């Protein structure tokens, strides 16, 4: 018995050590390019009303249309034909749908292969990426820059200039292109999706308590926050307190903040007091009206409210359809509508794809990006998971510009297009997540005066990152 135990222990040691002999880690990627003083960025104008027109740009349309299957100039990458473009792309993502989406490029570029790695969330992604960059280990060739982290990517200096690889920024919806440029104006990311907002409401509840489920009529009923509150009270009263207008007050943080187009800091100086006291006061007003169900955003109960019929509507973004409403309310097709959120158009969410500047597969990444910006690439994206593409030319296409069955035949694309033309755009900055998390947390209780709450939010941000000051 003694012998056996000793043998087992020694054997296990040996086996586990031998296991390592098969490894051949050969990654020689250079170390981090993140500059130490990255936080001291020169930020651009805090707010930009992107009133530029989203006209179906001629350049974009032409390029995309010409790129519809044949090997032509559009698909050439640094002088290589699609067949000549090779490489093995390391791609990390928190959503396996992206793997399927990315792989579609093989229809044009058959000799590009992939190594896919699932990471649980955008936060884990950043942690893993920073460890990889600082240790010089395998860094993904395609960088997934989620909007909450996009501001950090502007400063990190790890993204290649995409224009040098023939990626044409003029193909994009203007506000998305603008967000894809870093603080020096270098074009570092193509958008995965446009993310215009909307008020997603249940048609059955609308009919029962408001007498109509028509999106235009609903929009007219809630043209400003006061009428939004009145409508909420009406539903609550008519339902005997059973149905709330919205799931929770913190759900309003993203829309309300983005609608202002204002920033939470100017350099290192916090501007929450200055810029967001009104937003907090408005949230308090809505809370005092008692029209919310008291559900904190992203919690299981919040998710459940989409199917339970105890909440009328939820302000969100176009990706809510596939990522929030459908998974939570699988039987709900046809029972949802999209109205306009009071207070103006906004962008909520989005991912930008960048190219790691030390990548050894730049041609392959550039090829993929070219594919993504074609009509076919954009349609694949929409067919797969209803991403509204960032390519402006495709919004004329029938597959996109048509009644949406999930929304009871409403043509939501028209609304999204209008929003993309007129929305207020809030350009991301480093540490955005700190602000949004803090704002969301305090929006759950809203105790104190708006000034006191704004002060607490600033204190909270400073406790997480002491370089900021009031």
């Amino acid at each position, binding site marked *: 018995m003694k012998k056996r135990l000793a043998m087992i222990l020694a054997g296990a040691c040996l086996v586990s050590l031998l296991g390592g002999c098969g490894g051949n880690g050969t990654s020689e990627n250079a170390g981090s390019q993140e500059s130490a003083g990255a936080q001291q960025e020169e930020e651009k104008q805090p707010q930009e009303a992107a009133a530029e027109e989203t006209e179906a740009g001629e350049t974009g349309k032409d390029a995309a249309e010409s790129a519809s299957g044949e090997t032509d100039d559009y698909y050439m990458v640094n002088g290589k034909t699609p067949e000549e473009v090779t490489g093995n792309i390391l791609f990390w993502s928190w959503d396996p749908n992206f793997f399927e989406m990315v792989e579609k490029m093989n229809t044009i570029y058959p000799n590009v292969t992939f190594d896919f790695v699932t990471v649980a969330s955008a936060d884990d992604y950043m942690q*893993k990426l920073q460890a990889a960059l600082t240790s010089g*280990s395998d860094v993904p060739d395609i960088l997934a820059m989620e909007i909450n982290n996009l501001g950090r990517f502007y400063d990190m200096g790890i993204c290649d200039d995409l224009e040098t690889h023939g990626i044409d920024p003029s193909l994009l919806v203007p506000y998305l292109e603008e967000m894809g440029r870093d603080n020096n104006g270098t074009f570092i990311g193509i958008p995965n999706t446009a993310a215009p907002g909307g008020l997603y409401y249940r048609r059955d509840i609308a009919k029962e308590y408001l007498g109509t489920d028509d999106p235009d009529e609903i929009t007219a009923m809630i043209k400003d926050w006061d009428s939004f509150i009145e409508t909420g009270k009406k539903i609550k009263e008519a339902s005997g307190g059973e149905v709330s207008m919205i799931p929770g007050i913190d759900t309003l943080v993203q829309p309300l903040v983005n609608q202002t187009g204002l920033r939470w800091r100017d350099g290192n100086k916090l501007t929450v007091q200055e810029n967001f006291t009104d937003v907090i006061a408005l949230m308090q007003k809505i809370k005092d009206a008692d029209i919310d169900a008291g559900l904190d955003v992203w919690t299981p109960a919040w998710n459940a409210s989409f199917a339970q019929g105890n909440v009328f509507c939820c302000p969100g973004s176009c990706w809510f359809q596939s990522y929030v409403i459908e998974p939570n309310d699988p039987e709900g097709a046809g029972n949802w509508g999209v109205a306009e959120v009071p207070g103006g158009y906004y962008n909520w969410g989005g991912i930008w794809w960048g190219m790691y500047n030390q990548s050894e597969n730049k041609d392959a990444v550039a090829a993929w990006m070219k594919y993504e910006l074609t009509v076919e690439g954009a349609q694949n994206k929409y067919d797969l998971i209803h991403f509204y593409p960032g390519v402006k030319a495709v919004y004329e296409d029938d597959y996109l510009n048509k009644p949406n069955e999930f929304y009871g035949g409403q043509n939501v694309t028209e609304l999204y297009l209008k929003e993309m033309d007129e929305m207020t755009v809030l350009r991301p900055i480093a540490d955005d997540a700190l602000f949004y998390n803090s704002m969301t947390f305090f929006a759950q209780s809203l105790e104190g005066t708006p000034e006191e709450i704004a002060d607490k939010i600033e204190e909270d941000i400073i406790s997480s990152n002491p370089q900021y000051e009031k």
Partner: protein
Amino acid sequence: MMKMNKTKWIDGLINLLIIVIATVSIIPFLLMFLMATQDNQTIFAGRILTLGHSLSTNFKTIVEAEYFRSFLNSLFVSISSTALTVFFGAMAGFGFAKYDFKHKKLIFQLVILTMLVPMEVGLVAFVWEMRVLHLSKTFLPLILPNMANAFSVFWMTQYIKDAFPYELIESGRIDGCTDMGIFLRMALPIIKPAIFTLSIISFLQSWNNYLLPMIMINDPKKFTIPLVIASIGNMFVADYGARLLAVAAGILPIMIVFIIFSKQITEGLASGAVKG
């Protein structure tokens, strides 16, 4: 007679208390197994005390997520890492407890001091080290750190100090046994309870480890259970039913091991408590 009745009452109350505590402890497990058969909608609707109809869907989801491969990976990593922790912990503990050498106290304190430094602090350096050693594409980064586990050294030192008398070493030497022989043939069998306890602690630690595999593992074929569980569902809506089925399936082997070795484990914990 009165006294008998009073004792019975007290016993009954204690039993009732034990039943209540046991029920409170068991309910989360029971709910986990029930919720593993349900879909999100049923769970969210609060019908968690009923058997759901989604067991096969959830099972399909975890199979598609390569759960069973990750199970084998976790098993390999945890067993190897536990064996190393116990073996090297016992060796170091034996040295500290039974040998006198220069600066012994200082070295022991240094080992204990490393417990104060969270693993996260040295994470980047560790990732770099693994890359330089060309080990980052193997399981070794998840296994090797446990060879130098301060807690296991401390645990074993304390246990061996009390449980293994110096006279046994002398008698071993008189009979011609080498020092390694004394450790392997005499010390290890005597400290079996401590080995079982340490094994279960380090196995669980390795089995549940999330951060290190998340940072180190880039090959989905080498994913461990916590990585696979965390990635079931989308970023905004977790597939709770499938996740709970994966958790339940991951807990079962640990429960089986615990049931088989429960006597030794509790013995080890108790003796550690008395002799410490």
